[in-house]
């Protein structure tokens, strides 16, 4: 064995240190722009929004520190609680419709093989559309006049035209249906991927054991698909809770506030009524609710993974 001269060793270590330092420098330089943009455009406005929620700001005029007044006024106002209630109705109404539809679609996609992929592509087309454009399209379809598509379908069943969007009872279900029309297939992608992970042998073995299709579904598909269903529930919950564009386009929160969710209330208070102090207070509340939803989501998924390992 040739002994390594002392000087050689130090040069060697020094060059490793240099390389590490150079690596850190290059890494920082490459990550820098992304971090700077994200801090400047996302993080700073978030802090500024929080600061503004503690001040009385109306029509861009800052009238000074207000403490928690905006929040107190917000929660003392029954309108806020109604809006929160409507957000929950919208979110869970849409989930109740979207998840079973997505599951059906995913089962069909798997069953149909190559044609299933075409089906999934077709079902996903509305998802590529702008929510506001989807709203315009459905306004035209739901137009309560002879010659309107929906009115004509009703007419073939002998029913008079219905003005769903200006009916306080029907506006919310209609807005939910349109939101689901746009998004349910997105959940089907994740469920299709989840179904693909279930070994086919399990179904063969179950068929040999004489299980019916219903039993195979409840004993194999549902339990093994549970992680994917959980992902879908979490992602859709967050996305429906924050939905605002479809509502702006279809009903502008009406009629008589029947579709004014918390997300729409934020838009209305901040940008229409120009009460920026209170608008920012709603934004802070929205952010906190989102945070709870996301932490819950990560917790649920994290625990499940831990359980499997």
């Amino acid at each position, binding site marked *: 064995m040739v002994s390594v001269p002392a000087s050689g060793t130090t040069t060697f270590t020094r060059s490793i240190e240099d390389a590490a330092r150079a*690596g*850190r420098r290059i*890494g*920082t330089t*490459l*990550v820098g*722009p*992304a*971090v700077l*943009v*994200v801090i*400047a*455009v*996302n*993080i700073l*406005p*978030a802090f500024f*929004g929080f600061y*503004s929620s503690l001040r009385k700001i109306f029509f861009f005029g800052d009238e000074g520190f207000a403490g928690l007044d905006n929040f107190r006024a917000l929660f003392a106002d029954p309108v806020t609680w109604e809006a929160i209630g409507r957000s929950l109705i919208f979110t869970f109404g849409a989930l109740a419709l979207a998840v079973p539809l997505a599951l059906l*679609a995913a*089962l*069909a996609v798997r069953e*149909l093989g190559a044609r299933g992929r075409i*089906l*999934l*592509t*077709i079902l*996903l087309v509305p998802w*590529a*559309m*702008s*929510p*506001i*454009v989807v709203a*315009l*399209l459905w306004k*035209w*379809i739901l*137009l309560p006049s002879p*010659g309107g*598509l929906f009115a*004509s379908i009703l*007419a*073939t069943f002998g029913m008079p035209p219905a003005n769903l969007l200006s009916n306080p009872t029907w506006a919310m279900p209609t807005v939910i249906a349109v939101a689901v*029309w746009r998004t349910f297939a*997105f959940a089907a*992608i994740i469920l299709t991927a989840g179904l693909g992970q279930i070994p086919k042998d399990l179904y063969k073995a179950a068929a040999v054991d004489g299980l019916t299709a219903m039993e195979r579904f409840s004993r194999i598909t549902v339990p093994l698909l549970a992680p*994917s269903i959980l*992902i879908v529930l979490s992602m859709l919950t967050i996305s429906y809770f*924050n939905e*605002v564009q479809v509502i702006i386009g279809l009903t502008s929160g009406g009629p008589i506030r029947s579709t004014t969710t918390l997300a729409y209330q*934020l*838009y209305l208070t*901040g*940008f229409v009524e120009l009460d*920026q102090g209170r608008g920012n207070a709603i*934004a802070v509340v929205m*952010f906190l609710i*989102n945070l709870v939803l*996301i932490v819950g989501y990560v917790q649920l998924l994290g625990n499940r993974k831990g359980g499997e390992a």
Partner: protein
Amino acid sequence: MNQSMRLSGRAALLAASAIATVVVLGPIIWAVSTSLKSDNHIFAVPPRLIPDEPTLMHFQRLLAEGVQWSFLNSAFYTVVAVAFAVAVGGTAGYALVRYPVPAKRALLILFMGVMSIPSYALLLPTQVIFVRLGIFDTRLALPILYAAHVIPFAVWMTRAHFATVPRELEQAALVDGYSRFEAVWKVIIPGARPALIAASAFGFLYAWNDYITATTMVESPDLRTLPVALIFFQGFHGRDWGALMAGVVIATLPPVVLFLVYRRYLIGGFSEGSVKG
């Protein structure tokens, strides 16, 4: 017995798929049909799917209103934002995989955390900041905001893919006498192509389809995006459903074509993320 049950099950499945297809595509086809009908055929009773005398008059009316400029605005904001976001986000994603970046975990949490802030909740403070900086109601406002919302997503998406490009491949390229730049351009970027395409396509859908950011950050008619222009058009010509559906067709064509062309990457991007995530 079993055989016939399977067959009837399959028939039910096909029927359900057919109904789903009609419910999903029907409204879109109806919009296209309306956009091609002449004014006096639009409200025909009973409605007809195939226009009697197809006409482009509604599209011409939109052109007369200058909607093409809003289309170009949308295209400009979207392309600038996506190019910037994917370049910056992809670079960061690459660095986070290949270099010993300080505070790597904190940065990843930062990018993830930013994705969890609903973007419209930041619009009120952003408007005030942009007014003070003189960016409000300029051509810069929307590209900056769209890029900032797409960057975290691009980082997460490309990071996973850069990790799959073997380090040896890069080193081999360097040994072969390529410069750093050439190695990145010829070896690393092609290796991460699916992620770059998926991130670009998602960014495109987000920016092109946005309404709320565009309507709160831009006021001048000259700077409007297409969705905002359509809502204004509706405000003035509420009953002109022919022109409005022509607008729906124009606004929908780019994202839908993009989705159909890149569906493999888009669907893959999500299903991979969910199964592995």
